[in-house]
């Protein structure tokens, strides 16, 4: 009995997936499409003179800004909750990304084909940190559709990175993207185990 309690307490009770991408690409829309609660917003304080670290040390003489992060929640089992965190878009808020990404299963980089260049920085970030990510092309109505290979080439994506297209407003498609990144993270982890075993 005691053993069971201990084991249950050790198993992770919550986890997260990060939703990244340029401003206005539909991150909040995707979170809202699958979240069981209306997406919530948390804020961190930023002092303009020292970006980052002193989240709280906002002395009155310094101007402070807040950076907002929207998130949603999915209860997957009685003992497991998944949180989805949208990343702040602007580059100067990137210090928050480390906090958001620590311990994440992986990331979905949402892409708008009309503004591919906005995806480069998020892609670089996840690649450099070794965080598993997939690319999801958000296809708003009336947006021309390009073959996945063309988009992958334009983004200079490594061959193994999955690329899908979706309508971020659609619950099933948004859920499909979450399944995809989780499958990919699982595959990556198993590959690492095989490499380590050899």
């Amino acid at each position, binding site marked *: 009995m005691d053993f069971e309690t201990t084991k249950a307490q050790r198993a992770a009770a919550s986890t997260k997936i990060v939703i990244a991408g340029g401003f206005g690409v539909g991150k909040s829309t995707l979170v809202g499409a699958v979240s069981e609660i209306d997406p919530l917003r948390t804020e961190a304080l930023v002092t303009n003179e020292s970006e980052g670290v002193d989240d709280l040390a906002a002395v009155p003489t310094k101007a402070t800004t807040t950076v907002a992060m929207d998130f949603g929640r999915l209860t997957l089992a009685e003992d497991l909750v998944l*949180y989805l965190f949208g990343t702040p878009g602007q580059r100067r808020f990137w210090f928050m990304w480390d906090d958001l990404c620590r311990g994440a299963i992986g990331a979905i980089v949402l892409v708008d084909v009309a503004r591919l260049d906005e995806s480069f920085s998020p892609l670089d970030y996840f690649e450099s940190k070794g965080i598993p990510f997939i690319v999801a092309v958000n296809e708003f109505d009336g947006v021309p559709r390009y073959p996945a290979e063309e988009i992958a080439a334009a983004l200079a994506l490594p061959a193994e990175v999955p690329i899908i297209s979706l309508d971020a407003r659609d619950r099933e498609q948004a859920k499909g993207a979450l399944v995809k990144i989780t499958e990919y993270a699982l595959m990556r982890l198993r590959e690492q185990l095989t490499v380590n075993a050899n």
Partner: protein
Amino acid sequence: MTPPHEPEDEVYRPRLIRSYTITAGRTATKVELAMEATLRLQPGVEAPVLSYPAAQVLEVCDRRSVAEVSALTKMPIGVTRVLLGDLIEQGLVRIQATITDNTSTDERLELIERTLRGLRNY
């Protein structure tokens, strides 16, 4: 059609109370508190007299994550972490496990598999 509205990342607004007042100048906690980490009230522990912000945090935190507590109390994430850290040290609240840098590969694997099963049935 235009892309759906997405709120601005950045908001300017005056704060009535400075954060460092609430936290008595502290900016860090001894406990690691991930954004997604969930809290549980410890049963049978009588709460001492708490500051109003700490009492607010205690009231909403059961079965919720650090990020949710921050959102519901409308306190910045850093302030929320300091107050939660205090409640944990006082034994009033317990933090449930998440993936950290110390998580073993087996535990990580198990969590991702559970997540996948949950998502497929969601």
